[in-house]
C-alpha cells in the first residue's frame, strides 16, 4: 500500500452482501455505492435492519462483499484472505464497537495496549502509547481500572482510546453513543470531532440519533440495503 494513491480512500461499487441461500436468503446489502475521502467525517443512518452494521463490517475489512467491489486505498479487499485483512485492520483501521467490547477482566491500560501487542510493539513503548491515548480521551488516572469500575461513557472512551492507539487512518464507530445519555453522548461526539479535526482521522459512524449525526460532514441514509440519500452538511461547527 504505497503513498501514491489515485483513487479515494474508500470506494464501494455495487457492493452486495447476501446471507443464506434460497428461501432463507437475506440481501443485507443490495448494490451499495459509496465513496469516502481521506479526512471525512461520515454518519450512517437508517432504520433497523437496513444494513448499516453489515456495511461497517465490510468497510472495516471484518467481512467481505459477496458481490461488487470494495477498494480500500486501491486494494481490492474481496481478494484478501483472513490474515491479510487482519493485518489491514491493525495497520489502518480502528474500531469502536456497539456495546464497547472491552476485555472485562483487563484494566483500561491493558485493553488499550491490546492492538499493539499483536503488532509486536515492545512493552515499554506500548504502555507509553496506551497512556497517551487514554490521556487524549480524558481518562488519565484511570489506567488501572477494569471496565466494571468505569461508567458507560468512560468505557466508551477506553474503546475509543483502543481504536486510536495505533494512529489509524480510519476510525469506525458503530453506534458509539447508543448506550449513553445526551450529555455523555455529546462529550463522545466532541472527542470524535477533535480526532477528526486535529489528527486528520477519517471517521465513519453509525447512529440512530439525528442530534449526533449533526456533527458529521455528510449523512448517508441506508434503506433496505441501499444508500438512499447523501446529505452534505456545512463543515462549520464548533462543539
Amino acid at each position, binding site marked *: 500500500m504505497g503513498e501514491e494513491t489515485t483513487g479515494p480512500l474508500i470506494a464501494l461499487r455495487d457492493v452486495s452482501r447476501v446471507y443464506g441461500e434460497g428461501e432463507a436468503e437475506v440481501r443485507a446489502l443490495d448494490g451499495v455505492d459509496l465513496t469516502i475521502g481521506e479526512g471525512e467525517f461520515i454518519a450512517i443512518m437508517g432504520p433497523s435492519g437496513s444494513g448499516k452494521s453489515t456495511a461497517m463490517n465490510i468497510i472495516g475489512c471484518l467481512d467481505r462483499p459477496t458481490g461488487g467491489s470494495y477498494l480500500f486505498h486501491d486494494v481490492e479487499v474481496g481478494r484478501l484472505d483472513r*490474515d491479510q485483512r*487482519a493485518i489491514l*485492520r491493525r495497520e489502518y483501521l480502528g474500531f469502536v*464497537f456497539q456495546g464497547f*467490547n472491552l476485555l472485562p477482566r483487563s484494566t483500561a491500560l491493558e485493553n488499550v495496549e*491490546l492492538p499493539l501487542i*499483536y503488532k509486536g510493539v515492545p512493552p515499554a513503548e506500548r504502555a507509553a502509547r496506551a497512556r497517551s491515548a487514554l490521556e487524549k480521551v480524558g481518562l488519565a488516572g484511570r489506567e488501572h481500572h477494569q471496565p466494571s469500575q468505569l461508567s458507560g461513557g468512560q468505557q466508551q472512551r477506553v474503546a475509543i482510546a483502543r481504536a486510536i492507539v495505533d494512529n489509524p487512518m480510519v476510525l469506525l464507530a458503530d453506534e458509539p453513543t447508543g448506550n449513553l445519555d445526551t450529555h455523555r453522548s455529546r462529550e463522545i461526539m466532541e472527542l470524535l470531532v477533535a480526532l477528526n479535526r486535529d489528527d486528520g482521522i477519517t471517521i465513519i459512524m453509525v447512529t440512530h440519533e439525528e442530534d449526533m449525526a449533526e456533527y458529521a460532514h455528510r449523512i448517508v441514509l441506508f434503506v433496505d440495503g441501499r444508500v438512499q440519500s447523501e446529505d452534505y452538511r456545512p463543515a462549520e461547527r464548533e462543539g
Partner: protein
Amino acid sequence: MLWETVRLALLAITRNALRSFLTVLGVVIGVAAVIAMVTIGQGSSEQVTSDVESLGSDVLMLRPGSSFGGPGVSETVAEFTLRDADALRELSVLSAVAPVVNSPATAVYGNANSSTTVTGSSNDYLDVANWTILRGRGFSPAEESSGAAVCILGESVRQELFGNADPTGETIRIKTVSCDVIGYLEAKGAGMMGQDQDDLILMPIRAVQRRLVGSTDVSSFQLALAPGVSADRGTREIEALMRERRRIQIDEADDFRVMDMAQIASMLTSVNSVLTGLLSAVAAVSLLVGGIGIMNIMLVSVTERTREIGIRLAIGATARQVLTQFLVEAIVLSVLGGVIGILLGFAIAFAAARLMAIPFTPSIEIVGLAFVFSGLVGVVFGYFPARRAARLDPIEALRHQ
C-alpha cells in the same frame, strides 16, 4: 512476544486457579507416579547391588523346589534334613554350610515383647550371612549338637526387649521355651527389599526344630564357597551331590535349586522392573486422561471466551496469534501440572526411600523426560481447541451471547 503470550496464559490460568488445578490433576498424578516409581526403582536396585556386593560373590543358596521362590503349589518335594548338611560339609568346594529353618515367634522379656523371626542355624550362618557378634559369643559345639535353648539377638529385638541394656546372661521366653541370651549382633539396617534385617533371633537349628517347629526339616542352606572356587563349579558339585542323595533319575529335572548372589540379585531387580513397568502403564493412562481433561477445559474456555476471541481478531490478531495463545495456554497448563507432578513424585520417592531405607536417587533425565512429556500432552490435546479458537469468524464471535 512469546514471553508475552506465556504471561497472558499464566494470567488466564491463575484467574481460574481451582479449575486449572483440577484440570491438570490427571497430568500431576501421571507425572508424579512416573517420577516416584522410577526414583524408587533406581534407589532399590542400587540398594540391591550394594547389598549383594557386601554379601560377597562367594555365597550360594540351596532351596528345595525347582522355581526361584521355593516349591510350587503342585510340587511335593522332599525337604532337606541335617543329614544333607553333613553331606554338604564333605564337599571340598564349600568352606561353610549353614542349614536354616525359620519360625515366626513372639519373644517376651518382663513386660516387653517383640514379634520376630527365629532363625535356627549354626555358627557358620554368622560367617555366610556376614553377621558380627557385638557382644557375647556364638554357639558352642555342645549347644549346637544338643539343641540347647540359647539365643543371639538381632539389634531390633534387643532394642525392643532390653532398650540399650546388655541382654547377655538374661533369660527370655520364646513361645513356651525359656532361652538364655548369649550375645547380640551388630546392626545391619534394612535389606534388599526394605525389610528390617536386624529383626531376628538366632538359635541352634536343633533347638528350633525340636522346640519350636516340631520337625526335622531344613528349609534352605546358605553356603560359602572355599577360596578360589567359582560359583559355577560350586553349583555343579552341589547339584551332583543333591541329585545323588535325592535319587533323581538322569531324565528327571532337579527338584531343588542352587542360586548364586548374581541370580538372587537379578531376581530381586526383575521383580522391581515388573512393578515399574506396571506403574508406568498406569502413569501413561493417567497422562492420557489428564490430556483429555485439558482438551475438555480448553474447549470450554474457547466457548466461554468466544467474545474475547472476537475482540482480539477484530482489532488485528491473526489466526496464528490466536492459535499460539491458546496452544501456549494449554502447554503452560500441562507443564505446570508436570512441575507439580515432578515435585510430588520426588516427595513420594523421598518418603518411600526413608521408609524403605534405600538411597534417594533423583535423576535429572527423568525430570527432563517428565517435562517434555507434559509439554507434549499440552501440544497434542491443546491443538484442537486452539485451532477452533483461531478459526472463529470475528463477526460471529463478537455477536456471541
